[in-house]
């Protein structure tokens, strides 16, 4: 199914304004697995006739990896560039499927002149469900065991543990928790720039440790809310040769299947 996506430039040219900007992020734009999450979320937005837009080719990396890798210069260059674009379009509301973009836009842009109402897609979707706008036809996941791997930048980082779990309930699925969850959730190993380099010397990969947490409770689905967690958990499940029994999905994908 094709998705209908307008850019800010197109809307502006037509004299229109979106209600919300969908910040896609680098992974969401280029990573093959993450692009499916982007599409699933866009599909939900289309389904609900939400007036949204993307920056498209005017979007650039938020600078999160640069900042975490210690290059504050590059981070601020990226940030100021993005803020110029966002402010020129008078963007007020942003939703994003990446907790790293979410954290940076929400917390680190304001003092550089970028003030927006920023939501993670799970928060955005939960609100739509609460307002009765988004209805999920259960079915596919009814009675299935789903566990949620908290992305550090959404959970511990920004205190959002509930929205993703509400969505799982909405699927009529059985929410099962790993022994390390919510504020004690274990990192997938990708943050802080680790995604972009080999791990330091040690005796195990972090994503294996985390995948074991998940496999221990024998879920049917491991749900995530972050493109980097997605990579890490998918790789972990593959390495453990469990990819036929346990699927890894983003919450947007799970919901998109039910509309």
């Amino acid at each position, binding site marked *: 199914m*094709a*998705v209908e996506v307008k850019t800010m430039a197109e809307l502006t040219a037509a004299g229109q304004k979106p209600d919300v900007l969908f910040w*896609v992020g*680098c992974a*969401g*734009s*280029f990573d093959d697995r993450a692009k499916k999450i*982007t*599409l699933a979320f*866009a599909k939900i937005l289309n389904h609900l006739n939400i007036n949204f837009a*993307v920056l498209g*080719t005017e*979007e*650039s*990396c938020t600078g999160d*990896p640069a900042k*975490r*890798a*210690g*290059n*504050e*210069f*590059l981070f*601020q*260059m*990226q940030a*100021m*560039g993005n803020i110029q674009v966002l402010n020129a379009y008078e963007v007020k509301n942003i939703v994003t499927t990446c907790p790293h973009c979410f*954290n940076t836009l*929400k*917390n680190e842009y304001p*003092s*550089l002149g970028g003030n927006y109402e920023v939501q993670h897609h799970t928060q955005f979707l939960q609100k739509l469900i609460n307002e009765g706008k988004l209805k999920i036809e259960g079915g596919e996941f009814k009675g299935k065991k789903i566990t949620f791997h908290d992305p*550090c*930048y959404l959970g*511990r*980082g*920004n205190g959002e543990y509930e929205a993703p779990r509400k969505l799982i309930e909405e699927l009529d699925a059985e929410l099962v928790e790993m022994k390390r969850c919510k*504020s*004690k959730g*274990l*990192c997938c*190993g*990708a*943050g*802080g*720039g*680790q*995604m*972009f*380099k080999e*791990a*330091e*010397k*040690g*005796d*195990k*990969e*972090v994503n294996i*440790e985390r995948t074991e947490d998940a496999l221990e409770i024998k879920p049917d689905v491991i749900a995530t809310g972050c493109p980097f967690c997605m990579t890490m958990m998918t790789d972990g499940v593959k390495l453990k040769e469990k990819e036929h029994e346990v699927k890894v999905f983003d919450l947007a994908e799970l919901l998109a299947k039910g509309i």
Partner: protein
Amino acid sequence: MISSIIFIIILGAAGFLFYKNVAFIRRNIMLGKKVKPSGDSSERWKTMIKVALGQSKMTARPIAGFLHILVYAGFIIINIEVLEILIDGIFGTHRILSFMGGFYDVLIGSFEVLALLVIVACAIFLVRRNILKIGRFHKPEMKKWPTTDANLILIFEIALMMAFLKMNAADQVLQARGVEHYINAGSFPVSSWFLVPLFESYSDSFLIFVEKAAWWFHIVGILAFMNYLPYSKHFHIILAFPNTYYSKLENKTQINNLESVTNEVKLMMDPTADPYATPATDAPVEKFGAKDVTDLTFIQLMNAYSCTECGRCTSECPANITGKKLSPRKIMMDTRDRLEEVGKNIDKKGKDFDDGKALLGDYILEEELLACTTCNACTEACPVNIDPVSIIMDLRRFLIMEQSKAPAEWTTALTNIENNGAPWQFSQSDRLNWKNEA
């Protein structure tokens, strides 16, 4: 009379020594950069009351948390007794507060119960550390002194509480016998039960000796303990309060924006700026990031002195769990050790002395810094709101921006961000291609 004089001399000496040591630490902390703490002061007070006074984060581990609250409450409350000891010591009186009558009995009685609980809790702590060998107490950074320190504190506390009970036991036997000076006061639910039977057969003079000896041991022990604090992780009993007051209150994964960088970036992006203009002031060029403790903020340095070395951070750290060198506790211990060293150098060899060493490289290695995922499991776990991540980030910044020591893969990713706005080599003009891949 003589004993009053001796007491006052000991008290004065202990007070002076303590003052000197605290002044040393205070000065060291103030070597850090001044920064505006986060939030407003009412929020900061609230955090302090909740986290330090209320021990809200301790109970994340129920057993250790519960035992710790016992010791903590015991110690604070039993200190009311120290007030009486001080007055008695200075004026040569005995149980000066006993005029409170029934209330005094309740006080002494509850002190005894608490003393017993403190002894039991400390004994369990010793078992946990030395017999059960709980993992977080036996990491590489816990060799030698830190382990001795932890055991010394526990033994000290047990000894102090035992002295208190012994003193009460001898006292009550003497009271019962109507010996002069030993007025009838206090109730002794604990010592009457297991110590008094042992004491009853002894003579008055021997018991008077025991009572006096225990009294002196108790108070001199407390004063010695107080002077031990500045050399120990136990200093957290004082610094936990200001430290939590200065907690980071922003969202955990928010990393501060360096203002020095903002200024330069603004200049670079300002089309009207003259690139060849020399800076208006001769202000020394600011370093980006931190190389040594003096590049850190006073809050980060206070963090280091407040660390209880409990290792809750390290035991939750994904890097440490998977065998990497990084341990957030070690980051804090190294910062404190280095700061002590810098402080001593200043005192001995003057303010500008350079020992050629630094926190980065001589204490904390690149390999440790590079292993952090910034997941904030450590800051979440820390019972006194220490923020090891901010130190890791500041050292990383120096490593990358000043020493250009980025791992090759990072350099590639960052070059990509610079050139095409994504950490991978995809053209920015392809950023919307996903929409046609449905």
